[in-house]
């Protein structure tokens, strides 16, 4: 072949090569385009979830009580694992998981198993130090309660998937949760994510959960928690409740629930360490026969209806009174007492005599006006309405029993709200825990304002009741409730519990309580203290009244409420 021929042959071969490549390109990019594009999309594109941040819960001074934080969860790839047993042993020491359970999971043929979710940062770091390629990490949101047990039963807790399970976390789950977002991203050959941007970029931004500001004050809550726990421990009791409420608005500044003596206070950071009864908010879920603290309802009703005067003398010298087929006695013999002293000394006889004058129709009406027999509407899950018989079903003895706080079941929150009526001039206010919801997306949010339920009694009756209840603290059964520097009004209660075996009133188990308001001259706080089944001393004036005093003194000092009664060693200087 001559030279020209060889050149033409080489050119032809090169042209043929290019034609084959071009043809292949046409086949891939035109004919097979749709199928290849779909496969590429499946391999390269993925939907990246953008987790929304759960809202923060603050106290009334905007101090954090519940916050979410991303922490690492540990997962394993069992299908690639060479020695699952050894890996399980190493991981169980760090993560405090059962080694046998871990080994079982890591021995499976799955490509992904959770080893431990939402671990503490220190433990995650130790797992990383193992340097295993078969163990990976993924960030997940975890809820933290930095104040530990403070207001634990009020806050509640969340589950593994950040859903509210108890307390305010559950009641306001929808507001706190937010909405997850997503973005359609691409990943390269080594799995790095590339956000494409530009037209056609598909995404939905996450909507952060709303924050919630409570009416609870962290400091007053701590005071209530501490004093109540001390009393429950000293009395070796089964538990207790302490409520601090603003009587004018219904705002709850503290709602303390103490676990049984010997049990730690509920810490929502570790709910699995507690029995379900220990995270229950007994302030709203439990009912108890209030005993003598309920006498204020009868007294207020009788004064309002003018069937008795505070200074009217009532003969209690018999020491007992028969109502229908039941004989009810006084704890100790009294003589002839004024009605004020009937309440101050907690005479059952005197109280029942006045109740019989009032009559069950009117008495039942006032019991309802004070909020008993119905839920208060406070924003905690599990509230019950208490136990109140319809007056048409009252037996002959009911009026006497109910007047002294038996044959009726009340919740602590109902009792606190009822004393709020006496403290604020006669209005029943709805107790509430959330002050406002703060929207994160520039939205309007929501503010909660005081809600009056209805007028129970007049201001004049309130003034009379206040004087009577101050007498309880000054000279009556509530002397140990008197806070230094402040006037106080309140009532003691020592209520027998029902023996669940016999169905009769127990001679050994009591509920000791004190409820009142301070300062009596211009009430700022209603404080309820209830101690369940104390051992040894059982009287409300001995077990619960000192808690009232301690909480009142410290809370009023913290709130910078000026003392209105400078007796008892305090120096009062006029400048």
């Amino acid at each position: 072949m001559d030279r020209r021929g060889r050149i033409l042959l080489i050119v032809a071969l090169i042209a043929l090569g290019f034609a084959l490549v071009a043809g292949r390109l046409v086949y891939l990019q035109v004919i097979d385009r749709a199928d290849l594009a779909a496969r590429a999309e499946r391999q390269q594109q993925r939907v990246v979830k953008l987790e929304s941040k759960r809202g923060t819960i603050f106290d009334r001074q905007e101090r954090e009580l519940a916050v979410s934080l991303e922490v690492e969860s540990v997962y394993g790839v069992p299908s690639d694992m060479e020695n699952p047993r050894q890996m399980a042993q190493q991981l169980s020491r760090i993560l405090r998981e059962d080694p046998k359970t871990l080994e079982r999971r890591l021995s499976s043929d799955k490509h992904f198993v959770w080893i431990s979710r939402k671990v503490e940062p220190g433990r995650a770091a130790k797992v990383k130090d193992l340097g295993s390629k078969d163990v990976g990490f993924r960030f997940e949101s975890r809820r933290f309660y930095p104040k530990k047990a403070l207001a634990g039963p009020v806050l509640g807790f969340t589950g593994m998937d950040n859903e509210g399970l108890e307390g305010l976390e559950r009641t306001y789950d929808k507001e706190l949760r937010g909405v997850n977002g997503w973005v359609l991203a691409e990943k390269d050959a080594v799995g790095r994510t590339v956000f494409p941007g530009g037209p056609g970029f598909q995404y939905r931004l996450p909507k952060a959960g709303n924050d919630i500001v409570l009416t609870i004050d962290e400091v007053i809550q701590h005071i209530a928690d501490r004093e109540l726990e001390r009393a429950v421990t000293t009395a070796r009791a089964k538990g207790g409740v302490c409520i601090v409420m603003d009587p004018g608005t219904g705002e709850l500044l503290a709602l303390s629930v103490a676990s049984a003596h010997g049990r730690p206070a509920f810490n929502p950071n570790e709910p699995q360490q507690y029995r379900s009864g220990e995270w229950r908010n007994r302030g709203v879920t439990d009912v108890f026969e209030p005993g003598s603290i309920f006498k204020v309802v009868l007294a207020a009703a009788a004064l309002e209806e003018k069937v008795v005067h505070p200074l009217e003398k009532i003969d209690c010298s018999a020491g007992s009174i028969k109502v229908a087929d039941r004989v009810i006695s006084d704890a100790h013999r009294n003589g002839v007492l004024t009605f004020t002293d009937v309440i101050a000394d907690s005479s059952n006889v005197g109280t029942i005599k006045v109740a019989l004058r009032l009559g069950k129709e009117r008495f039942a009406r006032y019991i309802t006006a004070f909020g008993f027999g119905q839920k208060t509407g406070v924003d905690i899950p599990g509230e019950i309405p208490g136990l109140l018989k319809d007056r048409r079903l009252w037996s002959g003895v009911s009026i006497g029993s109910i007047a002294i706080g038996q044959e009726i079941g009340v919740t602590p929150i109902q009792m606190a709200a009822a004393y709020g009526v006496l403290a604020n001039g006669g209005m029943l206010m709805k107790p509430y825990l959330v002050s406002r919801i703060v929207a994160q997306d520039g939205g309007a949010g929501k503010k909660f304002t005081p809600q009056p339920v209805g007028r129970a009694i007049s201001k004049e009756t309130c003034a009379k009741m206040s004087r009577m209840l101050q007498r309880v603290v000054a000279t009556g059964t509530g002397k140990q409730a008197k806070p230094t520097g402040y006037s106080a009004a309140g009532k003691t209660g020592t209520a027998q519990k029902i023996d669940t075996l016999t169905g009769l009133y127990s001679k050994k188990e009591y509920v000791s309580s004190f409820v009142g308001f301070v300062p009596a001259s211009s009430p700022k706080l209603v404080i309820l203290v209830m101690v369940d089944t104390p051992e040894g001393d059982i009287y409300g004036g001995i077990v619960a009244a000192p808690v009232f005093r301690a909480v009142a003194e410290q809370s009023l000092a913290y709130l910078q409420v000026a003392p209105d009664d400078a007796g008892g060693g305090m120096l009062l200087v006029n400048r």
Partner: protein
Amino acid sequence: MQTRTGDIGSFVFERGNRGSLRRVLAVLVIVAALLLYVGGKVKIVQLGYQIEALEKEKRDLERENRALRIEAASLSSPARIEEIALKRLGMVRIAKENLIVVKQQPKAAQRAK
């Protein structure tokens, strides 16, 4: 046609080779345009990597910020502060004997003095 090695310029600019020059220039322009196009795509991917890295850094910083807020909240808890005050600093609660209540007289009474 004779080719002269080392003298491409004069070869190209010789009258008979202007058609070839145009063809070479056209190819160069097309190649440049293609390079610009591909380069742009590569730049977008690189910027995407940078965005992802910055997003990660932002998330890490936000995470650290939240962790510090939680730690600050925990350190300022009333129970902890009280324990430090009582046990480490030896502070005591105020006794009623130490309380002096100073009642301020109304301004009118002060002026009268």
